[in-house]
């Protein structure tokens, strides 16, 4: 564990910037998000969960896959420097790990040759994730529903704890250990630091609301598929995509060509969501998820049933962003409660 005094944090970030593209929480206009760091002094180390989730660092809203001109295919020039993410919260670190199960090589089910996504891998595989433990979780936080907590380090390479005086960097993964081991000129964490970490951790955990039991939700949801509970849950949903687009784990996309067909243009992949009617509309004009409640049900089935069948985990980490932005306050925690207390 190394210790970086608060006044030397810019110096530390600058050393990262020498060889890597560093992303950190920043305010852009009225909203907070993870942005490439140009000047470490511009990083706000106090931003809690950013308004926009960090998934866009590795899985941008709109990503050019390649460009074409006639028959010729051109690869897009990218920043090839490895990525460092600074200031990521535990829920988001775990979200990236979940997305790596989908796009990367973190998960191979026996007998199932899952494909790997080169666009994700070339960014995520070499990335170093510095996760910041939460000392003051919010009332919208529910990471503990998923067995996690404000000081959980899953999905991080290096866990960072803010002790008021200093940032204590605790390497978690092999990659993180190698990286921290290679650093020179930083002091080791003191006994006092360790005691502070323990204290802030206990305080943070005490601020979390009670965890709701999620056991058996996958089966329960599947059993309830045709039940009227979805009419009750879905009645107030206005079917926009705000929840999905600010979600740190929603990852559906569309692929489109922009430009002149067959001549010159680019192929892009763009975030899409099951909340939009076009998402499942078939060429015939038929839409198997015609009504808004069908689409709402799909989003929650994916998070709490299908993803568990495919990857053994919930596709939600309890970051609470959707709770904050939903225009009708359709709270994902209420959805889970309604499902778990319904009769199949």
């Amino acid at each position, binding site marked *: 564990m190394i210790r970086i005094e608060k006044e030397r944090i810019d110096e530390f970030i600058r050393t990262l910037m020498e060889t890597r593209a560093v992303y950190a929480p920043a305010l*852009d*206009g*009225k*909203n907070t998000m993870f942005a490439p760091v140009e000047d470490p002094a511009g990083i706000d180390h106090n931003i809690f969960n950013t*308004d*926009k989730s960090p998934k866009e660092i590795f899985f941008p*809203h*709109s990503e050019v896959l390649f460009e074409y001109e006639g028959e010729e295919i051109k690869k897009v020039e990218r920043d090839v420097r490895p990525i460092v993410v600074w200031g990521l919260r535990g829920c988001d670190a775990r979200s990236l790990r979940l997305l790596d199960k989908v796009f990367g090589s973190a998960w191979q089910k026996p007998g199932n040759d899952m494909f790997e996504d080169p666009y994700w891998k070339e960014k995520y595989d070499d990335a170093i994730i510095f996760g910041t433990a939460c000392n*003051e979780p*919010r*009332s*919208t936080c529910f990471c503990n529903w998923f067995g996690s907590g404000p000081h959980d380090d899953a999905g991080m390479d290096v866990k960072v704890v803010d002790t008021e005086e200093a940032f204590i960097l605790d390497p978690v993964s092999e990659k993180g250990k190698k990286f921290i081991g290679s650093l020179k000129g930083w002091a080791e964490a003191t006994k006092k630091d360790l005691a502070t970490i323990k204290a802030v951790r206990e305080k943070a955990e005490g601020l979390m609301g009670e965890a709701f039991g999620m056991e058996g939700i996958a089966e329960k949801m599947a059993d309830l598929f045709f039940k009227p509970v979805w009419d009750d849950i879905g*009645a*107030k949903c*206005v*079917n*926009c*995509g*705000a929840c*999905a*687009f*600010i979600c740190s784990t929603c990852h559906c996309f*569309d692929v*489109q060509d*922009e430009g002149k067909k067959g001549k010159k243009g680019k192929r*892009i992949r*763009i975030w*899409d969501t099951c909340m*939009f*009617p*076009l998402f499942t*509309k078939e060429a015939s004009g038929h839409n198997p998820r*015609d*009504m*808004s409640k069908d689409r709402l049900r799909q989003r929650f089935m994916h998070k709490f049933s299908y993803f568990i069948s495919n990857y053994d985990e919930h596709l939600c980490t309890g970051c609470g962003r959707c*709770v*904050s*932005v939903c*225009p*009708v*306050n*359709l*709270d994902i*925690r*209420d959805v889970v409660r309604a499902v778990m207390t319904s009769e199949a």
Partner: protein
Amino acid sequence: MKELRETVKSLLTEGKVDLVIGWEKGTMPGASTPVFIDTAEKADSLIFDSTCRNNLSVYFTKDRRELAKDDKKIGVVVKGCDSRSLVLNITEKQIDREKVTIIGVPCNGVLDMKKVTGKVDGKEILEFTDDGERVTVKGREFEQTFPLDEVISDSCVTCVRRDAVEHDLFIGEAREPGSDENAYVEVEEFEKLDSGERWARMEQEYSACIRCYACRNVCPSCYCNVCFVDQNDPQWIGKSPEITDTMIFHIIRNLHVAGRCVECGACERACPMDIKLLLLNRKVAKEVRDRFGSVTGTGLENKPAMADFKEDENQDFIMG
């Protein structure tokens, strides 16, 4: 609140309505959530205060039209702006006036939560109370009280029709509309900019758009069976959050609701990126008022400006 609940209970028990759409307490401080009340017992959860930000008329349009099927009689709780949406939807033959019971509630403006959190330097609010004139917020180690007027949505600041313009029942005493002489101050400021500056301002606002369409989906005036952005054969518009396409979406939506927007501000409050969506809408509303003398949704006998023609109306944009 008590009177509202009792009114709804008797409507349901007397069989005058089958369902009432209102608001109940939400899951966060300062939040309410729409609720569908179909039995008298459930009516005790109804509330009305500055947290009631949604325009509930939206539940009569889009694929929630099923609500109004089967000859169901529906009651709906409305603020002034929401009642104008209902009037618009009735004049556009989307809602049968006979089947809807309009319950007006006295509105003093609804919250802009960004303004509230701004008052407490972004600190987390854990408790919120509103007595109709002042709001009090509490968090860890702080408590603050300020006038409601300072934290209401921009659309409420300039609103001159706070109470339902059309209603069957009213909780309390409905106030008469005020003068809209000074209602468009910020639009007038915007008009003073040259076209380049206006464009730059709009680009700056819309560049934050994530194309989630929350603005469109909470809007009771935006109810095309298939929105042009949801068509792919032909595809009218690119799907990426690139500024050109984003501007096309917002400007077309803006023109689609010309003479139909009631300036309720639900779009702006729904926007997860806090984009000032109402400015262009209000610019258009001001044009409609000045050119055609029409204020949307203020009377069942008035057709929406774009669906009406009077021989003596202003035609200088055609005749030159």
